[in-house]
């Protein structure tokens, strides 16, 4: 009898452990409005991608996406970020609900034509990976206030900009669910796991 109780207890313990996988955190401030918790969301935006198509929040409606900030002439961390983002692109090839969004922080130089060429040379398709440009102020503002990523001009830097190498995981409700170092393979592995977890929750 005792053994049976112990057995049930152990089984119970194991099953409870596997069930309670912690949900991904929700980043940013939260408020309670009329008894409901309101979470930090990505603000409204409108940019233009490498095919001159307008990209807004609605482009990612009912989609999970990964966002980052870069520029094409950057020779420091961006090539590493693009190598890692290409891994994400390849790993999510069979996930129609997962998209990628790369913002240029040098819109004066990175025109639509240049981004088009860049994406083509990277060998990626524009319906899954949007490279966007827009007004410099709007890009910097959304980077800092919506994605909590650093992006600004700085003439003292070798390439003229400072920006973080972060990848941000955004859920279907436009909330940030993860932040990863896009220059580190291990951290990007974590992102790939989190994408799978998030997709399961959304199912």
């Amino acid at each position: 009898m005792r053994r049976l109780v112990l057995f049930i207890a152990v089984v119970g313990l194991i099953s409870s452990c596997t069930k309670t996988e912690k949900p991904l955190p929700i980043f940013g401030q939260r408020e309670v409005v009329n008894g409901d918790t309101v979470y930090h969301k990505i603000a409204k935006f409108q940019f233009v991608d490498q095919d001159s198509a307008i990209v807004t929040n609605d482009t990612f409606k009912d989609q999970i996406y990964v966002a980052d900030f870069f520029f094409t002439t950057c020779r420091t961390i961006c090539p590493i970020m693009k190598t890692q983002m290409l891994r994400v692109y390849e790993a999510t090839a069979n996930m129609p609900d997962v998209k990628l969004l790369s913002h240029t922080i040098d819109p004066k130089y990175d025109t639509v034509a240049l981004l088009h060429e860049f994406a083509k040379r990277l060998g990626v398709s524009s319906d899954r990976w949007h490279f966007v440009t827009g007004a410099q102020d709007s890009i910097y503002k959304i980077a800092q206030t919506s994605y909590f990523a650093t992006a600004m001009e700085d003439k003292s830097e070798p390439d003229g900009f400072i920006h973080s190498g972060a990848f941000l995981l955004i859920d279907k409700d436009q909330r940030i669910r993860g932040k990863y170092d896009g220059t580190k393979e291990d951290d990007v592995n974590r992102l790939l796991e989190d994408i799978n977890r998030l997709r399961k929750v959304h199912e």
Partner: protein
Amino acid sequence: MNRLPFLFIIIIIELSGCNPGNTSNKSVKYQQYFVEGEQLYTTHCSNCHQKSGKGLGLLYPPLDQSDYMDQHLSEVICLIKNGKSGELIVNGKSYNQPMPGIPTLTDLEIAEIATFIYNSWTHEQGIIDVKEVTKILKECDESSQR
């Protein structure tokens, strides 16, 4: 007793194995070039060309297998220092992303980087001496001034 000639032969083979002349000295120099070159490559080159030397898409050309490198040693030395823009054909594919030069590199550092990339992956060129590099760099400086 029988072993003696055998031992003798082994010694002969070992001696001849490490090339005649002052080569042990040379190989130390090669090792130094290669190790320093690897570090410099990691700092200045691997962001784009990757640690594996495979490059990235059609943006950054590969170095691990490169007919351009095989055929254009002088140009490679010059472009490490001075950069390069415009179209570049590598292994039959067109690349067109400007590469910034690194004018602060010394001739020795360029020789070390060249020794590293020309003896990694599929390449086995041997040491690329600083004297050779200095000579090549003088010529590319002159041609760019013309």
